[in-house]
């Protein structure tokens, strides 16, 4: 059953505008994600020309860029997960927000792994932001317990 976010939060924390608080937190995660995007873009600009020069076919080029491309894909999934969480807040879907944030956390873990494999440093603010999240249900699982 869906319930208004404000109602759901009354028993848990007596804040005046919980949806606004949630949006502010999501905005911080978005800033961290955007910084990660810039770091990845910087590496892409640096490595793509060299990979192209060294490649002898398109398949060879994509093979050389596979790790960076996996990081690009993981970053896209993270951004989509954040936007899905924002949509839950917009819809006052308190119960939907939990699994949506579970997807954000999972996407962040996969992103960290993909960046590591691609040898791209994640900004420290990203790791700190993700470490600040509480235990969450697995992505796609609505039961928080």
């Amino acid at each position, binding site marked *: *059953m869906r*319930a208004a*976010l404000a*109602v*759901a*939060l009354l*028993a*848990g*924390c007596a*804040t005046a505008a919980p949806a606004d*608080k*949630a*949006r*502010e*937190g*999501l*905005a*911080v*995660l*978005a*800033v*961290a*994600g*955007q910084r990660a*995007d*810039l770091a*990845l*873009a910087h590496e*892409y*600009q640096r490595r*793509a*020309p060299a990979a*192209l020069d060294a*490649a002898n*076919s*398109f398949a060879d*080029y*994509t093979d050389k*860029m596979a790790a960076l*491309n996996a*990081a*690009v894909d993981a*970053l*896209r999934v993270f*951004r989509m997960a*954040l*936007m899905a969480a*924002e949509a839950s807040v917009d819809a006052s879907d*308190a*119960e939907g*927000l*939990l699994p949506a944030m579970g997807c954000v956390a999972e996407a962040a873990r996969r992103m960290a792994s993909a960046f590591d494999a691609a040898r791209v440093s994640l900004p420290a603010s990203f790791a*700190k*932001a993700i470490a*600040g*999240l*509480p235990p*969450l249900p697995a992505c796609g699982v609505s039961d*928080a*317990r």
Partner: protein
Amino acid sequence: MPDSATIKAIAALIAALVNLVSDIAGGKKEDVPKRISAIWMQNRSEILRADAEAKARNRFKA
């Protein structure tokens, strides 16, 4: 109404998100737009990937 465990989990999540603002954004929430689309409009890395792949396709087509 959600059950009490869900309410507690949501409250913990909101509290964590509030902490993110104070810990990482330094409490400067007024400087940060609240809409994700306003902060992070598009993935620059995806644009670069598309451009680089177009160049690669063009090179190896010839």
